[in-house]
């Protein structure tokens, strides 16, 4: 089976609204093809930084840590922090999205229901991190 992720759009009234509209699909085998060394990580792991995704609420940027062909950690490098609403995003939505990113690629779980994935900036930056790792 091939897994393709398509970032359709994120202009809905979610927590982080994405302004642009971008299609992307890529197979998982492409996402980790060329290792980049990183000094502070355990052997076999490498960090790939996504592009900054500008959203209606401010810039969002994530970094993924990859071991062989699995994402083992997601770091949110930049997120909107100017309002109480932004802080709720950071405390609640991002941890949830990170958890879903990790659990969605578990060998035991094929898909997750109940995540609205409206945090488009997270998705966009995550996708670019995967692209950058290709």
């Amino acid at each position, binding site marked *: *089976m091939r897994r*393709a992720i398509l970032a359709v759009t994120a202009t809905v009234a979610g927590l982080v609204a994405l302004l642009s509209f971008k299609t992307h699909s890529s197979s998982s085998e492409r996402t980790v093809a060329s290792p980049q060394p990183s000094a502070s990580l355990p052997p076999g792991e490498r960090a790939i930084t996504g592009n900054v995704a500008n959203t209606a609420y401010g810039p969002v940027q994530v970094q993924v840590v990859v071991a062989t062909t699995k994402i083992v950690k997601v770091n949110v490098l930049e997120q909107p922090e100017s309002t109480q609403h932004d802080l709720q995003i950071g405390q609640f939505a991002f941890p949830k999205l990170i958890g879903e990113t990790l659990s969605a690629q578990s060998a035991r779980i*094929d898909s997750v*229901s109940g995540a609205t994935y409206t945090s488009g900036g997270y998705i966009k930056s995550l996708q670019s991190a995967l692209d950058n790792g290709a």
Partner: protein
Amino acid sequence: MGTVVSFDVPGSARRNGSLDAAIRWLHWVDRVFSPYRADSDVSLLARAEVTVDACAPEMAEVLAACAFVRDLSGGYFTAAPGGQFDPSGYVKGWAVERAAALLAGAGSADHVVNGGGDVQCAGGRGGQGGDGGCEPWRVGIADPLRPGRLALVVGASDCAVATSGTAERGPHILDPHTGRPASGLASLTIVGPSLALADAYATAAFAMGPARARDWTASLEDYAAFAITEAGGTWHTPGFARYISTA
């Protein structure tokens, strides 16, 4: 629509072009049905600048389906939440179900399409197509009270899983009868053959609140429900038990 759609498909869907066709379909739906695009048919219709007849033919289909679920749910589902015409509550599941149907029509027997947490499955994991010997897809139900964790896992073959809830986006489902955010439930999941209906049923049941939702979902033919209340309690309809994966 404002969401992300992921596909888990056999390599043949890439080679025969059906994956590309499904992606083009989703973009078309976004252009025509997005309430966030000023020039979409939905926006034009909401501003009464066009009639239904001037819209894409699919508009009449969507409106008829919204009316069906509205009537079936005693008005707890509406194509005009908050008073503004916006059929997104039906369109998202419908669009994903159609995308999956495009794959099936091109010969894919085993695939999962997940649109913003609403999932349409065919066949099973690791299947070779139609041999009946593969395992069901394992679809996790996100736990709205423990971010990043799953409440349970559903075994799904040839069926849809849709969840409505307050997780991530906060209270955003209105009770059409009061105009206020629905309360009492943290999430409600519907499993059944059609994602379009499962998604709309989940939205309606969530708006009902726990007591009414339990009775109403038990009355639905071919659709089963699982709920998590704001207090952390759970219940499911009798028909849901067979979907719960214990492995």
